């Protein structure tokens, strides 16, 4: 997993709420046996029509909005547990998703892949959408070390929560599996009495 420390970037706004993982990556694109290439089909059915032409009114097809942060409506990532949703967002180039509320499994999957979910208050999310609408080139700053997200040019700033263990993993690029493999003796001991 790649490290995440601090990022300054423009953002892509997607105010739609309850975006489920079937929209992020439809089931018919889950047939790959590797983790790469899912970005091509990110938001496939919102991004392309039946003839594979880009839909001009979809935000990812609007050249005005670019950046490594996706700012999304509440309950982002609900539905299926497919980790492919986190892979697709990451493969497309996103490193952070900001929302006022994340579905549990998506949040875990994102954290396991170096994609930082930043949960902010509904009010702060609203302010972010307004700032981006006002100026598509406005820069968001995400500082994991200090757990702060800000829009310096607008004087907006908010703290965000992250589990200390997950924070350490993200800052250092550690995977859970490395830790678990280091305690297999403990696991074997547990099994004896289980």
């Amino acid at each position, binding site marked *: 997993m790649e490290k995440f420390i601090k990022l300054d970037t423009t953002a892509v706004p997607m105010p739609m709420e*309850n975006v489920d993982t079937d*929209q992020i990556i439809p089931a018919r694109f889950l047939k790959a*046996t590797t983790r790469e290439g899912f970005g091509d089909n990110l938001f496939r059915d919102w991004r392309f029509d039946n003839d594979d032409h880009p839909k001009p009114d979809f935000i990812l097809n609007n050249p005005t909005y670019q950046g490594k942060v996706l700012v999304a409506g*509440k*309950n982002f990532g609900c*539905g299926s547990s497919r*980790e492919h949703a986190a892979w697709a967002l990451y493969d497309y180039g996103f490193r952070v998703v900001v929302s006022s509320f994340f579905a549990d499994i998506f949040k875990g999957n994102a954290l396991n892949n170096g994609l930082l979910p930043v949960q902010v208050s509904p009010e702060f999310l609203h302010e972010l959408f307004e700032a981006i609408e006002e100026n598509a080139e406005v820069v968001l700053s995400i500082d994991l070390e200090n757990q702060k997200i800000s829009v310096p040019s607008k004087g907006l700033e908010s703290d965000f929560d992250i589990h200390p263990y997950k924070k350490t993993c993200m800052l250092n690029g550690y995977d859970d599996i490395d830790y678990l493999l280091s305690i297999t003796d403990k696991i074997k001991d547990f099994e004896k009495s289980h």
Partner: protein
Amino acid sequence: MGKTLFDKIWDAHVVTQAEGGIDVLYIDRHFIHEVTSPQAFAGLEKRSIPVFRPQQTIATADHNVPTINQHLPIQEKLSRFQVEKLTENCEKFGVELYGLGHPYQGIVHVIGPQLGITQPGMTIVCGDSHTSTHGAFGCIAFGIGTSQVEQVMATQCLLLNKPKRMRISVDGELQSGVLSKDIILYIISQLGTGGGTGYFVEYAGSTIRSLSMEARMTICNMSIEMGARGGMIAPDATTFEYVKGRQFAPQGADFEAAVQQWSELYSDEDAVFDKEYHFKAEDIMPMVTYGTNPGMGIGVKEQIPQAADSDSPKSYQKSLEYMGLHEGESLLGKAIDYVFIGSCTNSRIEDLRIVADYVKGKKKADSIKAMIVPGSKQVEAQAREEGLDKIFEAAGFQLRQPGCSACLGMNEDKVPKGKYCISTSNRNFEGRQGPGARTILASPLMAAATAIHGKIVDVREEVI
């Protein structure tokens, strides 16, 4: 202070605590399938490590298998490759596989309980969000991502924050024609798709207790649709009776000893939940969904709510637009094109019996295309043994072969763009059953009645 059922099982599975108070949870059973496992196996290969406990890992092919001609090679190249990859991986890593053609093959959440692999008090995971189904046996069962599939393969453990506890009680007697699917669709419509996020749910109350194991599974199955990590029901005599005698369940004296232990699995009277909800069974009508998430459900006699009353009118309007429906509209009498009876929510033998009982001696409407997809080879065999296939055939339905099928349209079982499908599955997301498909979630009885009438009816007026 007493403990909840959830805490009793969770605490008994904590191996140790890692930095920051995160728990290392031991996993008793790990189910895998072709879609979310290949990258996990590849991870093990990269590290040159084996599956830690292959005998606690069970594989099946279900998500993208065809539901006709399963004896022939899979036509679609990518699906075939993925299923072959699963076979190859299981051979290489020594994991038992119930693949296509095996008498135990079927939807992962149907076969686990049916074979007695799922037992009270266990922790169970699978790379599939509907793993919550197994909670019906008094298990902590939940869906995980592929990185976690790899972790469980490598160590039989996961690093997890303990969720909060919620109890949802349903008491009273259900109206005739109202099934467990209606109970859970009703609960989700009340709590919303995010109402359970951060929680593990225990379902309780006299209505829940009165349900069969298969009906309980339908309820636990859809816990994820309100955002809950999982759902569970305390095991009781109904549970023990169901587990008894199944292939992989403890037998004889071992079973008796197990029942002794399982009987301790309940929430103590003074146990405290972080959140509680109470519902009355009498308030529940046969349910139908009208939007693009499972929380957008109404009683069949009710009208589609106004956008202004939703907490996100824009998303709500977009949803209705996709469905081709309007505020204030009733779905009663709505003409339907497709009927799908299947999925890990409603493809068990009881579901097929309910459908057969209703369609017996009737004929499917000509305008309806219908698919009945059993949850497993064992369900299929049982249905044939009971002659349900003949009843379906006479009524104009075909009993297909097991798989996830049109629940998520990974195989060729899809609903065309713009068509309405009344479906016994669990998700009505945009494009879930195929690009542009319009899904209406309902019970198997509502689906059967729709197939006969060609439109949505109130089954309560038919089954008295």
